[in-house]
């Protein structure tokens, strides 16, 4: 009887620990994907002044993780990747960083900037991560999803922050 109780407690603890462990693993993998540029961005229209309205497609075994990672990917994409134009009057936008090696050159800054719940969140205006349409959750492999989340990025404030931190040059710097 005593052994049974022990076993039950053990199984209970494992059942709590395993999903959170898996969640952490997925989160770590999602962060790696961000740094490896494994996400896609598409323009969703001309945003209000000072913002970009984009849809970010992120990958993960867990849809929840992919949705949460969309914010980080959006900011990462606006800084380092840019995006293509297309429908709805969208024009292609170049990345804020003009140097492809910028991340490595300013690794200290960006590692702290992109920490979970880090400063990057300040530049997210709004997302639809609470109500992602079914057609934007794509199952691409067994237990592997591609999730599209619409994000509004406050690119003017983001640019100002990077200029202030000396990461990118302002239009008038040097004059």
């Amino acid at each position, binding site marked *: 009887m005593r052994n049974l109780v022990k076993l039950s407690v053990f199984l209970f603890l494992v059942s709590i620990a395993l999903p959170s462990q898996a969640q952490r693993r997925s989160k770590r993998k999602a962060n790696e994907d961000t740094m490896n540029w494994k996400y896609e961005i598409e323009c969703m229209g001309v945003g209000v002044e000072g913002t970009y309205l984009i849809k970010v497609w992120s990958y993960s075994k867990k849809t929840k993780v992919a949705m949460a990672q969309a914010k980080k990917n959006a900011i990462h994409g606006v800084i380092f990747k840019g995006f293509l134009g297309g429908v709805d009057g*969208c*024009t292609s936008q170049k990345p804020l960083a*003009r140097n492809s090696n910028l991340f490595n050159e300013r690794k200290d800054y960006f590692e702290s900037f992109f920490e979970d719940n880090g400063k990057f969140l300040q530049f997210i205006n709004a997302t639809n991560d609470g109500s992602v349409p079914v057609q934007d959750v794509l199952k691409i492999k067994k237990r592997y999803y591609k999730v599209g989340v619409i994000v509004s990025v406050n*690119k003017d404030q983001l640019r100002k922050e990077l200029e202030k931190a000396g990461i990118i040059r302002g239009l*008038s*710097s040097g004059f």
Partner: protein
Amino acid sequence: MRKFVIFFCSLLMGTSMMFSQAKKPTIMIVPSDVWCNINGYMMEFDNQGTVVKIPNYKKALQENADLLLVISKINGMMAERGFPLKNMESVMKSLEKNSAEDAMMSSKDSGASASESPIDQLKKVAKADIIMQLTWTVNKTGPRNSITFNLQGLDSYTDKQIATAAGTGAPSTSAEIPLLLEEAILAHIDNFNSTLMTHFEDLFTNGREIVLNLKKWDDWDGDFESEYGEDSEELGVLIEDWLADNTVQGRYSTTDATENMMFFEQVRIPLYYERNGKQRAMDTRRFARGLSKFLKDELKIINKVTTKGLGQATIYLGSK
């Protein structure tokens, strides 16, 4: 104590070097000739039998509210980026006002008026170092409207297009033209600024690009083929040697050279020069004065320097 003084002095020098800033180019938005022509803002006059059309900017700015909206919006967004623009309408008003004031101004003692040569009068036009040339057309397909928007950044001196953003927005049946225009500006201004930034980065790396003209007065007895110095080198070659020594990485192109004139393009001048141990911003006038001094001191050729903005200089050889 001595160490402290040395540290303080080096800190002061470092600070003065660090805060030395290049001359900032001025930018102004100007509607393109195509836009003025399409919208009926052109003046026609007979130039010895040939009808010439020129844009009537004053009329356009007084009558077209959409133009004002676009200029105002772009001005605001550029100011936000720390680069306020010259406002064409204000420049034109200032020119008119200053002209009227100059005409009335006279010396208190002698009654003399301010001296002004015909060339001074010719130079009194609205100008900027970089012109943002603006064109848009409204496309109509049935009930749907769309805007084709084209913004070009043109260097006033080298005539090069240094920045651009162009494209057609999404068609709409409900949005009004001012709204579509606003959307077009929001969609394109970042790309324009990105290409402008590329130009500025090039300027900081390779120096400012200018145009240099050398001419001779017709009463001067020498020319650009006259020989000078112990090596009996032609004047034109000596001038090219000076440019090779004083431009950034010896960059310049001799576009035209005859016995009467020399025309240099893509002359890359440094952004700074040193004076009294301090770095100062170099401009075309300062650079041309260097060549002028060389001609006067080394070759005993009296000359006159005139400049146009940040990017064009002409040196006349023979007299002032």
